[in-house]
């Protein structure tokens, strides 16, 4: 599809294939290694980093304040009430979990599909996943009325002889989310082990050598190790793929299994997953674009990556759109009054505005513009779009949670929902926490998997000549 004039102007295009380069020109094993390790091993941290880190830190402080007050007073400081007994907490929970998904998806599914271009972005995408899950995992805990007995959800031999109730989707959450967190961390760490080896060998300071040495577990790159390592990664990827699909499916069960009109629908699992990936990629863009600019990684995270992510978003965006469409259609087609009223209320009820925000941010804007490669490769536009989509996906969860609850079966108990300042503080707080953790990661860990980048360099191509020669 690349046209001739594009070839001349665009350095990102490989003249041989006419395709985008995954890696910029003239990179060698050492140059790549240097580029990536320097970011971490440089003795003097860039000021900008401190600036952002400060912002993150401030967010964390806000979060702490909000949480302390929450534990002292109770969830009543939030807007949750009858009939809307779930509010921001669960919305944020689902939103963060969703964001997490892109990481695993990129590292696992694209690995299985042998999408080489993933290699540049999978590391910090995975990091993003883990931090998102950290933020998400916090909410089910703090939204409890009595968080100090949250441990009752684990099947342990307490003296009450009473056990968890496994029919509850919340129990499924417990296992889905914990598994997801564990596997993501393991996958992430295993992926970093060889790079830790590199860091160990690049580091000057003794401390760094020790630290990375330990983390690398003494990795020495034996081809036997590599072979097992490759198998393990492949298996982990193969396991993470159904996991990532199951996690958001289970999250969607929190709603789909309930009896509430607007929750009780079979379309939820697929379109939750799609939505998750959708918002996940948006978040990857939100992070990748500033990073590559700031650390001059354009050569490693090329326009092709941006472009591909755009395509994925386009696809998932359409699945999500289909989900919305089906809800409306089923409301009409099922001729079920509960559904019909719920849908009408969702669109035109007192909180109808939130529905239209979501439709605008998730469907109208992205699905009309992402068709054009020009826009897909326009860095600024993609950055803005990524933020729009994230907003839209947050509102999707708002619509599902709140607008289904505030007007349900018995008209006598209809109510409404106004978030309090504590709701906002908690949400902003988690954003801060996320930034905070992510910056720590950028500073102290290799944010691009070197070993995997190397495999994509021209030098890694084994000359067929050499091989045949060896034959005789």
């Amino acid at each position: 599809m690349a046209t001739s004039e594009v070839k001349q102007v665009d350095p990102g295009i490989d003249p041989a294939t006419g395709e985008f380069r995954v890696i910029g020109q003239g990179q060698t094993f050492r140059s790549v290694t240097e580029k990536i390790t320097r970011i971490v091993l440089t003795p003097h941290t860039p000021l900008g980093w401190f600036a952002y880190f400060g912002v993150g830190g401030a967010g964390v402080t806000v979060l702490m304040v909000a949480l302390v007050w929450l534990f002292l007073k109770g969830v009543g400081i939030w807007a949750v009430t009858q009939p809307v007994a779930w509010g921001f907490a669960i919305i944020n929970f689902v939103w963060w979990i969703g964001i997490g998904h892109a990481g695993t998806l990129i590292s696992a599914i694209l690995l299985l599909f042998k999408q080489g271009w993933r290699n540049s972005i999978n590391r910090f995408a995975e990091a993003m996943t883990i931090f998102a899950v950290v933020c998400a995992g916090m909410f089910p805990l703090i939204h409890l009325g009595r968080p100090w007995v949250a441990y009752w959800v684990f099947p342990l031999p307490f003296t009450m002889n009473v056990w968890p109730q496994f029919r509850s989707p919340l129990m499924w959450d417990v296992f889905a989310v914990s598994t997801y967190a564990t596997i993501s961390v393991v996958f992430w760490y295993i992926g970093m082990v060889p790079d830790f080896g590199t860091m160990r060998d690049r580091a000057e300071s003794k401390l760094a050598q020790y630290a990375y040495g330990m983390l690398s577990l003494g990795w020495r790159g034996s081809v036997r190790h590599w072979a097992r390592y490759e198998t393990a990664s492949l298996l982990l990827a193969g396991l993470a793929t159904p996991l990532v699909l199951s996690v958001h499916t289970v999250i969607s069960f929190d709603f789909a299994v309930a009896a509430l009109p607007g929750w009780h629908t079979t379309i939820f699992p697929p379109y939750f997953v799609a939505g998750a990936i959708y918002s996940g990629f948006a978040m990857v863009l939100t992070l990748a674009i500033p990073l590559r600019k700031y650390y001059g990684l354009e050569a490693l995270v090329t326009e092709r990556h941006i472009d591909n992510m755009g395509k994925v978003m386009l696809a998932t965006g359409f699945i999500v759109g289909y989900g919305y469409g089906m809800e409306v259609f089923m409301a009409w087609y099922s001729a079920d009054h509960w559904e019909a009223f719920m849908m009408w209320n969702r669109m035109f009820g007192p909180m109808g505005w939130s529905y239209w925000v979501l439709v605008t941010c998730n469907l109208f804007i992205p699905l009309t513009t992402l068709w054009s490669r020009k826009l897909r490769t326009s860095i600024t536009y993609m950055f803005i779009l990524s933020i729009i989509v994230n907003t839209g996906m947050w509102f999707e969860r708002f619509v599902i949670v709140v607008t289904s609850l505030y007007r349900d079966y018995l008209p006598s108990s209809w109510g409404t929902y106004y978030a309090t300042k504590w709701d906002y503080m908690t949400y902003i707080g988690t954003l801060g926490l996320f930034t905070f953790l992510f910056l720590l990661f950028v500073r102290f860990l290799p944010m691009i998997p070197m070993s995997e980048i190397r495999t994509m360099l021209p030098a890694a191509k084994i000359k067929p000549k050499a091989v045949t020669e060896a034959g005789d």
Partner: protein
Amino acid sequence: MPQIFDRSSNALARMSLVLSGILVIALGVTLDQLQRSPWVTRQGQRADQPVPFSHKHHVQGLGLQCQYCHTTVEKSSYAGIPPTRTCMNCHAQIWTNAALLAPVRNSWATGQSIPWIKVHDLPDFVYFNHSIHVNKGIGCSTCHGRVDEMPLMYAQNTLQMEWCLDCHRNPAKNLRPTSQIYNMAWEKPSQDKPVWCSAVPGESGVPTADSVSCVTKDPATNAAAAAALAPPVLLMKAALTSGGAQGADPSYTKFTSQDALGHFLLAHYKIKTPQQITSCDTCHR
């Protein structure tokens, strides 16, 4: 570029891995034990009471009945803690100057209650009812242990939910004839200590206890002798129950195992099914 780590570090690394594993397990086991430990449950601990009241002395030594003090045990959910007056009934005459009893006399004089420390203290959201238990064949000692051998009162059992459930799931293993409720020395029937029970079909409205009568001496030989040899509590009770069971000329069955007796009583006391008595609303409201 030299080695970073010493030769020994490999061994160290592996060992620390193993150790941390062991540590986690150890922690789990400790916590599990801790929640059942007397430190939490107060099991077997003797509280520091204002008066060192000895159940041993009063029950075993003087042969007081349980209900002499715990008057409402058969009528109400609370067994009842005796008012000072109950103490003074005797101690107005005997031990009138004993220093140990000063608090009792003060209470009597001032009208202020004696502040006893609660020994059997259930959580506040648990609603236990003494009367139904004693009326359905659960003896005092089943839960409170050999109170007659306790110089100072302490909790024999943990009183934790798992302990309650243990019996509610299989009441048969603790049931005894209602005539033996207050018999501290009661032992489960065995080959050398059998129990003879007879039952007449109980009609609605008549307490189930009245349609069952049990003795610990073979009634075939001589019921009167059996009665004579029986301990005073049993004597009285046995008389009552057999009175209730009169008319149908009781034919006694011999029980040599708790299991057999338990199931016999289970049937005749119309004990509710485990499903019913392990339902949450049995104890929580």
